[in-house]
């Protein structure tokens, strides 16, 4: 097989992505700072830092704890607020990135999700809105939107009423059955699923005998979550027919291919960017070589092929 004949292209909501590699929300800032390191136009798309209605500082430090095979974060959705993101951050990014991006939306109430997700309706450079449903529902007594299929369904339906962009619902893995959640999202109008968000985890500082993270627990990500992510993406693939954006612990072109075989149409790379700022670039460069080794001409042929 000739490397030249290998095609990395894929489609999402009718938009052509040059390749399936998208930096994951929260691990790539608002993108433009990575332009100092390489030409970010090579990326399929970019998922921006989670955005809320008002500016948020997030949680007290420390917000990061190391794990044997990944890390825990409890950033607490630090962001400058949707108005600034829509006006300033998006236009800064536009100077370096000519393709469309994904706006990641957080929220602590139905109203906030609806408000923030429809704030991007007129943003030309936004391909889709990605709803991060792992945030606690402050008004609903701290319950999480992301672990009750009924609540999730209502949220998706509400958001779809006013958000005109294609809607990606990003699922939390901290559930009993993720396919139940995916089905609820799909049947209430979601246009795609992304998964997985971080697993709940905790580390303790043996000297202070207290949790490393100021707020106790946080979200575990990185290589250690990969087998869980592959399994959940495959569960979702078997349950719904909308496209899936797979993520969780991807750090090489091999992982990309495995995630796609499990059912992902494209993938997001998170923690790997933090340890190696060039991770996405290296994966994109490796991908055709690995495909050749494995006899894969076209990535679309492998999506979900491992389902038994």
């Amino acid at each position, binding site marked *: 097989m000739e490397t030249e004949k290998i095609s990395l292209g894929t489609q999402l909501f009718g938009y052509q992505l040059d390749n399936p590699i998208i930096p994951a929300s*929260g*691990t*790539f*800032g608002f993108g433009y*700072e*990575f332009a*100092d*390191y390489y030409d970010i136009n090579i990326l399929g798309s970019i998922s921006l*830092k989670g955005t809320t209605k008002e*500016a948020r*500082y*997030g949680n007290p*430090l*420390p*917000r*990061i*704890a*190391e*794990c*044997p*095979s*990944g*890390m825990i*974060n409890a*950033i607490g959705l*630090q962001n400058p607020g949707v108005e600034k993101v829509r006006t300033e951050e998006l236009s800064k990014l536009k100077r370096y990135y000519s393709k469309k991006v994904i706006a990641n939306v957080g929220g602590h109430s139905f109203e906030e999700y609806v408000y923030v997700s429809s704030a991007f309706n007129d943003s030309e450079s936004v391909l889709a809105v990605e709803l991060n449903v792992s945030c606690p529902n402050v008004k609903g007594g701290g319950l999480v939107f992301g672990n009750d299929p009924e609540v999730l369904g209502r949220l998706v339906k509400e958001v779809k009423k006013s958000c005109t962009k294609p809607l990606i619902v990003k699922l939390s893995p901290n559930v009993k059955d993720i396919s139940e959640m995916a089905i609820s999202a799909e049947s209430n109008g979601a246009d795609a699923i992304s998964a997985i968000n971080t697993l709940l985890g905790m580390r303790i500082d043996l*000297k202070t005998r207290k949790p*490393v993270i100021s707020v106790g627990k946080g979200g575990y990500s*990185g*290589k250690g979550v990969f087998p869980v992510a592959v399994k959940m993406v495959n569960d979702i693939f078997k349950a719904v027919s909308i496209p899936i954006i797979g993520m969780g612990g991807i750090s090489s072109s091999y992982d990309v291919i495995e995630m796609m075989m499990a059912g992902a149409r494209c993938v997001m790379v998170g923690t790997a*960017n*933090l*340890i*190696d*700022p*060039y991770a996405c670039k290296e994966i994109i460069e490796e991908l055709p070589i690995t495909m050749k080794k494995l006899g894969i001409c076209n990535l679309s042929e492998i999506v979900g092929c491992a389902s038994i």
Partner: protein
Amino acid sequence: MKKEVLKVLSNEKLTETIFEMRLSGSSPMLPGQFVELLIPGFSLRRPFSVAEYDKGILTIIYKVMGRGTEEMTTIKKNTKIDTLTGLGRGFSLSGSEHPLLIGGGIGIAPLIYLARVLYEREKSVKILLCGRCNNDLIKQEEIGKYGEVFFATDDGSCGFKGNALEAAQSLFKQTDHYYACGPMPMLKALATNNKKGELSLEAHMGCGFGACMGCSIQTTDGPKRVCKEGPVFQAGEVIF
């Protein structure tokens, strides 16, 4: 920021818990900037201030604090280390003719390079080294070459008996600008007392180059990242 593979030239014990590692192949670094080393077997990189830099040779001075720095002590000469260099913004180098440098414990490390550069710019440099005991006051001789050195220890085993703020009080009168690096309580005490200075802060880092918001502190000017806008901040802007 650059991702570079550096080669270990030496890795020597300075005191029971403090080591000095020299690495070759580094892009230029400014005083106050830091590097991040990827230690095999660990997921996240470890950040260290540049303690000296000269023609591609970088020195860091590190204290054994946990399992990563413990592992570092076993690294042999010629080992290659995946490193991010040129991280963060360093100390301002102009603006004061009579700077005071205040280092607490391992916070002395970045002040060595700073002292040399200020000395070479013909500033009249005063340096206050603070620690729990004499053992903490590393590199006294080297630093002595760049300015007038003062000492303070909690147990009085060297110089003034007392903490950094107490020792700094009289020196503050002779300077219009200070540079401080050391434990958070020391920095807080100094900044509360005197806003005309710069502080080098530490924070647990997810990335080290501005991508994750893991290291954001609150400042009078909104949130800022220790790794990107810092690690050096104006004493007056940090909200403790």
